[in-house]
């Protein structure tokens, strides 16, 4: 996957992961892909809902050693 930008939100608590993700997404253009790393346990539900509401698509997510990783394509 061609990732255009990476947001490292590891260790950050709510609402920082989505605030950082939003900021990074604003700098991308439609079709580009953002990768987000987070450790906040609410991040999965938060980012899934956030992406859907903003018209972005969550392409993939996985968990690796306690780190939640997301790939979101800008809508």
């Amino acid at each position, binding site marked *: 996957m061609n990732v255009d930008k990476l947001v490292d939100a590891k260790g950050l608590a*709510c609402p920082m992961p989505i605030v950082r993700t939003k900021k990074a997404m604003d700098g991308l253009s439609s079709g580009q892909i953002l990768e987000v790393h987070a450790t906040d346990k609410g991040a999965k539900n938060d980012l899934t809902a956030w992406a859907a509401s903003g018209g972005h698509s969550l392409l993939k997510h996985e968990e690796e050693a306690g780190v939640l990783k997301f790939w979101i394509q800008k809508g």
Partner: protein
Amino acid sequence: MSEKKTTNIILFSGDYDKAMAAYIIANGAAAYDHDVTIFHTFWGLNALRKDEQIPVQKGFVEKVFSKMMPRGADKMALSKMNFAGFGPKMIKGVIKKHNAMTLPQLVEMAQEQDIKLVACTMTMDLLGLQKEELLDGVEYAGVAAYLADAENGNVNLFI
């Protein structure tokens, strides 16, 4: 009118924890690309106070209010387990431990995210608070301005 969704929060409470909840929702809503307004009234106005003492002319009752109310977000008390000021010290330690944001940091982030911070002028008069004592960039309005935002709003909260 913009096509953006709006979130309108009335912050009535002057409690640290309740104000934290209000500001977390507000910052989240801004990340959701909403136009966000926090309308501060009564004790919620204290979240907008500058932390230093500002020399302004006041009557006796207003002076007493100013002394007894917390000067700024950092000095607000908890709604539960305040323990005469020891509770907020503990919660700030826990906030740091979990890498969460303190109330003053949340207020700062709200300003960075262009959240509209409004002070209710009628309650400012009641509590004897003057514009000079509140943060720069705060807007001043009354119930009609709040209703204009809220009647077309998507999220409305009273905290």
